[in-house]
């Protein structure tokens, strides 16, 4: 195998896919990227067996072939080289020679036969979504993903393609975030996928703000095609809990709050919380919200802010982190908090199809 490639393109490709390579791990081959030269482009693939990433880079191929090379070392070398053309030649023992200007390197690789098979981009269904939209949806929900490994189905986001909508849901059993977006797909392509947390993080990194991406869904894996980059991930097997039933129907009271003001007030007051005790009391009275925290042995904090509210006085206790999380990840100026009383679930909404259910804390 022999090819010549522009340094910046090569480096860009390597950097896009090297994130799944952990740097430690038991399988040596997983430290390597599979590099295949065919036609007029290089196909580079990495995998950690759960997630695989692949990208295509233009190059001039003199002799097609394939190999695997340690990606971190390769990327470090390419990064340090001066801009220009790089010649790469790999012999039959998978030893690569990298030459650029006055620099010369030999890197020992491994045979491509040892590299695990990587999923193909074919799926039963293909959905087309705007990259920026998907990224926003992930941002608005992913913080609510459960870290509790005993309930596997909650360790990811649910992507439900149904009724010409993509509904994305994440919950950890204490709060739930949900966003919806209308997209077009044939009715027979209705499906539910649970994308694991790690793939969500990786996907958010790869997505840009422009252009569409294609999602190929199969029963146990999904492939995301973003321009010349592809990411495939295993899906979490299982049935996502019926999230509709935990969303309160109609609420008696509705408060309009400035998002930034609420967020900064909570930030200030939660300075006096500890891991042990983080109960934050929100008291809503006529056009006023009082946030107060009283932590034994630490101190107390109180802040008031104007809100639009005309209902009965409600006092409700939340974990402040759970209130701040959605506020940090939406951009609207105003949010709406809907409640019935101090001990039923509350609902946070904004002007986009976003919904956040949070359970209050109870003192006994």
């Amino acid at each position, binding site marked *: 195998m022999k090819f010549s490639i522009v340094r910046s393109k090569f480096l860009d490709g390597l950097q896009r896919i090297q994130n799944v390579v952990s740097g430690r791990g038991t399988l040596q081959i997983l430290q390597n990227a599979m590099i295949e030269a065919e036609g007029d482009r290089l196909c580079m693939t990495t995998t950690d067996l759960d997630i695989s990433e692949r990208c295509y880079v233009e190059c001039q191929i003199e002799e097609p072939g394939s190999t695997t090379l340690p990606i971190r070392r390769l990327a470090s070398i390419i990064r340090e080289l001066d801009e220009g053309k790089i010649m790469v030649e790999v012999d039959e023992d998978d030893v690569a020679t990298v030459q650029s200007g006055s620099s010369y390197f030999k890197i020992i690789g491994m045979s491509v036969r040892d590299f695990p098979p990587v999923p193909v981009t074919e799926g039963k269904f293909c959905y087309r979504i705007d990259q920026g939209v998907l990224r926003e949806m992930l941002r608005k929900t992913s913080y609510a993903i*459960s870290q509790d490994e*005993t309930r596997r189905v909650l360790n990811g986001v649910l992507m439900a393609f149904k009724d010409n909508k993509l509904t994305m849901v994440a919950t950890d059993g204490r709060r739930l975030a949900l966003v919806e977006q209308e997209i077009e797909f044939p009715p027979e392509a209705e499906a539910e996928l649970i994308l694991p947390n790690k793939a969500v993080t990786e996907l958010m990194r790869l997505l840009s703000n422009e252009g569409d991406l294609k999602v190929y869904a199969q029963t146990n894996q999904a492939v995301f095609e973003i321009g010349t980059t592809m990411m495939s991930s295993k899906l979490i097997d299982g049935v996502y809990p019926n999230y509709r039933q935990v969303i309160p129907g109609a609420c008696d009271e509705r408060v309009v709050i400035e998002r930034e003001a609420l967020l900064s007030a909570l930030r200030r007051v939660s300075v006096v919380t500890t*891991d042990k*005790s983080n109960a934050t009391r929100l008291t809503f009275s006529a056009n006023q919200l009082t946030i107060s925290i009283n932590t034994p042995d630490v101190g107390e904090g109180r802040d008031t802010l104007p809100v639009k509210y005309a209902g009965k006085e409600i006092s409700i206790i939340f974990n402040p982190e759970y209130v701040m999380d959605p506020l940090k990840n939406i951009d609207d100026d105003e949010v709406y908090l809907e409640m019935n009383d101090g001990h039923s*679930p509350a609902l946070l909404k904004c002007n986009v199809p976003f919904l956040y259910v949070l359970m209050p*804390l109870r003192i006994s």
Partner: protein
Amino acid sequence: MLVRMVKDGHIRLLPIHVANKIAAGEVVERPASVVKELMENAIDSGATRIDVTVTAGGRKLIEVRDNGGGMGRDDALLSIERQATSKIRDVDDIERIDTLGFRGEALPSIASVSRFTLKTRREVDEAGSELVIVGGSLQDVREAGLPVGTTISVRDLFFNVPARRKFLRAFQTEQAHIRSVFTLHALAHPEIGMSLTSDGRELARLPPDATLEERVRDLFGADFCAGLVPLDRTRGEIRVYGFAGLPNQTRTDRSEQYIFINRRPATAPVIAYALREAYPPLEGNRKPIVLLFIEMPPEHVDVNVHPTKREVRFHKPVDVREALIAAITEAIGNTHRHKNNEPADAPPADTKAAAHDTQDTRDTQDVSLRTLVPEAAARPFDYPAPVPLPLVDAPRPAAVPFPAPMQPAPVPPPTGKGLPLFADPHAGSPWRWCRVLGQVGGRYLLLETDDGMVTVDPRAARERVLYERLMDNARSGETLSQRMLLPETVQLAPRDAARLRKHLSVVQAMGFGVAEFGSDHFIVESLPAALGTVSCRELLGNIAHDLETAGTRRGAEKWREELIAKAACRAVTGSSEPLSEEAAERLVNDLAATRMPYTCPRGRPTMIFTSYRELERKFGR
């Protein structure tokens, strides 16, 4: 103790009724018992220096030399003769030997089974006396030029009792026994200078007028001391002082439990019981290290339970137990109340000031434990510290300055963040300064502290932190529970379900929103907010199981809460992902702030400490 060797006329027969109370038993069982009797006599003679020399594990020679009061010739003869003769006249008559007095039999019985030489001189006498006894019969009494004090040499022990000789163990074993007898007496009397020489090799040389902690350090080394916390507490008429080992330093047996009752090495079943109560459960039934001195009016303790007086009986065992538990829990339960004397993020102290402080602290701490000042007791050991490192002016990154950098600080404090754990080095944190280096094996956290390296098991650490949070909540009576969005139903086995039902109110009071859901199903609607994520199935199963196996343990209040908290902590699901840097630091901080950071609620260690000294030793430096 009985043979007061001070003045003539002080040797006396004990009244028969006292003597009769004394349990029967052989005094001389093995060379170590000779050492014990002779050392006790030497201590009672008011000596300030006692030298013990043994050869061949005590078989060939045991010599105890003191500089005490000494004896006049008449007393010397009396102490040997009367009882020695009686013993030789009627060897089998144990009853009669007993009547001869409380421990009065010591010297004569030793003399009867060895070649015995007693050399003694009082200060008032011009010349001393030398007595030679072989197999119990007085061979020679002569005047001799001698230093003040008494020297007793016992040669060829059991030379005339072949049966006994046969049962002696290897030299090493006998020597080990002698050594432990020596250690016990050395601990009980730090004011007396002592030395132990075996086969010409000096095994210990202990300077006189030592404090207890100096004596402990001389005997066991500084590493041993690092794992001890001092204690001193008086409860009613009972004073308990000494040192308690931290729960992460345990032994498989009681060999390192040194207990003295009114300065007499002794033990009693109630003490072992109290230790079990005072310490958190220790893994594998291991035993803590303790050095305890219990002092109480002599009439409240009966030392005549056992002939060797190792086992005693208390008239009010409950008081003793309570006093012990209170003293130990106070010491190892950490002096948390003392913390936050100084803001944790205080700017690095001036080097000179720090050096000065060191000196000061050391001076104030250098208080004899015999006259225990409370402050001294509340502090951990202070080593004769090397001069604090000449710190470069460059600020040590976030590492908290300690008023008393007693060990050479890690040189140089590597870049990276240090954890300002406690400004006060005596605040009960396991370390004064630490820095999380990272996670090894995808699991254990590695910390650098100023004394060494600490490996922390995050899972055990998390259990400890959560356990204390839950118990704090349970004690304060106010619980905060987080309602679940998706209540979980759990089906239990019928027996488990019945147990859980029985204690459901306690479980609920602790903030677990658990309710019956019909036919052995339970629904979990809320969980204590402090708990984090748990597996509900495991949670309820654990609680039911533990409540049953515990039965109605000890009268301690809140035992059910403790059990439930422990069961709950076990159900907490840790993520298998490596901890983030912040999460690791938070966990380490939380752990250091607990009352019992060294073990998880089940008694497993949360951390393993490797001192720099140990590392150096292993690297052969």
